[in-house]
């Protein structure tokens, strides 16, 4: 008699999968006119999945023969991913209706991408890692090319697909090497295999290098970042807003889990890899963004830089470092969602504009929006007392504790360089003459998103405890097992 696996730890995922298929059916019968309904139901299912995650799922648990892990770390990251996706669906609604992109598959693909993210975050085996990653990436390739009649969008989708397939190939090659040299794909089995601290063969190292290269590609860390600016610029703006937040969070979570759980004993082997890509990402993110004139491209380089800072916490390889990464990603979520909400409001006479110069004199035409955007920019630059400062502080402290002084110093220097282009935007908004005014009204949904994320970013320093405590618990759960 075979036993039915315990489904409870995976309940949110199972719910989302069923909801996705049900919404697909609904859309198939109702047609594209029901896009708004499907979008709202998608957001609803994210909320329910989050509820199930917080209330029903008991941590720590694992199921499906250890292929699926539910611990505090997974819950924390999944909540972030769900939040990011829900914001992205809400923000995209108006845009896709205006631009004749309103098809029911759009929110459904967001839902499946989110499902893939949650599976990645909960992966307990190289096999489930890869499948989750592929589910997420495949949905993302499609939404990137969703405006199939414009060259830029199709180009973005194709570029993302080709390079993404390449990175999946590298990841699989690395996974096969790791499997070949250890005989197991499960994370706990791998951790056991390395526990002795014996000699590590060159083949195994090669495998780890390939796995981390594949993962670095997914988080768009230098030198695997080439796709990011083009895809961010070419994809429809709400899709870019989605790309910049939820998949990044999931990929960082996966990176952290893979490095800490199965390869935790091999810190000295992978630390230099993470160190190198962290430094390179911070430097490139700071310098390459200076010359940009397109705000979406600028955000792409900015996100490369942020990934560099987040990886600094991972490079520390300590519990404090992982906690830093988690706090960083939570704050990154708020800042980026808010900034993209502003970008989505950049419309002149019913046409989207993307140039940085279009923001000139925003303080006179849209004082409140300029204020919120200024908060986000100051926060991204890491000016105290805004949230971005605390995010950077956490990872810098962790790096210094781990003895990586050089890394922290480079991080400090690159944030100074990065501050230039963030603050240039503020200068444009407050000190330059206004160009054409953006269209009004921006809509209740945008106002809500901007207010929420703006308040969070501005006043995080008053109430940091809930998030920092949750992150600390999550980080501890990763090191416990």
């Amino acid at each position, binding site marked *: 008699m075979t036993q039915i696996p315990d489904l409870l730890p995976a309940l949110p995922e199972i719910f989302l999968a069923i909801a996705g298929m049900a919404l697909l059916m609904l859309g198939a019968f109702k047609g594209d006119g029901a896009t708004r309904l499907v979008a709202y139901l998608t957001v609803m299912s994210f909320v329910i999945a989050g509820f199930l995650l917080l209330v029903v799922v008991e941590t720590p648990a694992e199921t*499906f023969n250890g292929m699926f892990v539910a611990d505090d770390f997974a819950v924390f990251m999944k909540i972030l991913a769900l939040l990011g996706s829900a914001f992205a669906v809400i923000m995209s609604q108006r845009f896709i209706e205006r631009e004749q992109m309103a098809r029911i598959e759009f929110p459904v*693909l967001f839902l*499946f991408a989110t499902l893939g993210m949650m599976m990645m975050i909960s992966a307990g085996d190289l096999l489930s890692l890869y*499948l989750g990653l592929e589910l997420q990436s*495949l949905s993302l390739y*499609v939404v990137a090319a969703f405006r199939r009649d414009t060259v830029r969008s199709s180009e973005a989708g194709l570029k993302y697909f080709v390079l993404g397939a390449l990175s999946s190939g590298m990841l699989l090659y690395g996974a096969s090497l790791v499997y070949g040299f*250890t005989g*197991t794909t499960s994370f706990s089995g791998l951790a056991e295999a390395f526990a002795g601290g014996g000699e590590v063969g060159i083949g195994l190292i090669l495998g780890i290098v390939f796995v981390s290269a594949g993962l670095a590609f997914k988080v768009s860390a230098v030198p695997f970042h080439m796709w990011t600016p083009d895809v961010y610029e070419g994809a429809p703006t709400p899709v870019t807003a989605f790309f910049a937040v939820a998949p990044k969070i999931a990929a960082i979570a996966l990176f952290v889990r893979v490095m800490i759980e199965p390869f935790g004993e091999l810190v000295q082997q992978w630390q230099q890899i993470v160190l190198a890509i962290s430094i390179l990402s911070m430097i490139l993110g700071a310098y390459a963004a200076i010359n940009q004139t397109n705000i979406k491209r600028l955000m792409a380089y900015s996100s490369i830089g942020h990934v560099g800072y987040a990886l600094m916490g991972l490079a520390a390889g300590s519990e404090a470092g992982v906690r830093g990464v988690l706090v960083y990603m939570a704050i990154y979520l708020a800042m980026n969602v808010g900034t993209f909400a502003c970008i989505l409001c950049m419309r002149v006479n019913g046409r989207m504009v993307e140039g940085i110069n279009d923001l000139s004199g925003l303080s006179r035409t849209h004082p409140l929006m300029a204020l919120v955007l200024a908060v986000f920019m100051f926060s991204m630059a890491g000016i105290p007392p805004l949230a971005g400062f605390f995010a950077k502080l956490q990872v810098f402290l962790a790096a210094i504790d781990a003895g990586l002084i050089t890394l922290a110093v480079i991080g400090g220097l690159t944030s100074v360089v990065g501050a230039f282009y963030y603050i240039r935007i503020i200068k444009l908004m407050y000190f330059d003459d206004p160009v054409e005014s953006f269209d009004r009204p921006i809509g209740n949904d945008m106002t809500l998103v901007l207010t929420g994320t703006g308040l969070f970013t501005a006043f995080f320093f008053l109430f940091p405890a809930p998030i920092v405590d949750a992150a600390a618990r999550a980080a501890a759960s990763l090191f416990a097992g």
Partner: protein
Amino acid sequence: MVIQGLAFYLFALMTVASGAMVITARNPVHSVLFLILAFFNSAALFLLMGAEFVAFILIIVYVGAVAVLFLFVVMMLDIDFARLREGFLNYLPIGALVGLILLVELLLVLGAWAILPESELRVTAPAPEAASGLTNTEALGNLIYTEYVYAFQVAGLVLLVAMIGAIVLTLRSRPVRRQRIADQVNRRPEDVLVVRKVDPGEGI
């Protein structure tokens, strides 16, 4: 034992011979038919090894689907295979050399191949013991639908997304002319037919 040995050599020879015919036959349709013969013989070889599931999958998937697809492609595309094969002999020595080098490399690599002894202890899905009475179809079923049911289901979702993606990116709804049976039935000769009197040599 003797019969098994004989059968093995028979099927193996047939496989190799039909493999050779695949690349030498002048008519591409014959090539595909020889390919099908090669598949059947390799299926028989798998049967001899006791891998009945793989044998049947080979026939169902490769013969039933892949080879037939090849056949369609070969019949539909007008490819002049004789011209493609021109100059084959000129390149034979260099091709043989490359093949030889590859063979030596493979022998060197595989000859020195050693699997970590500890890794065999951690194998998650060892082959079932012959004494357990489990056929390999059952053993595979256990692996796919019990042990790795999670991976199996997620793979299904990945395929679903691939399907949605293909439809989203390529389907264009064109105005389709539908059949209206009522219109066809109600059609009367005087609506569509005009009888004209045409003078000889004049035309309309």
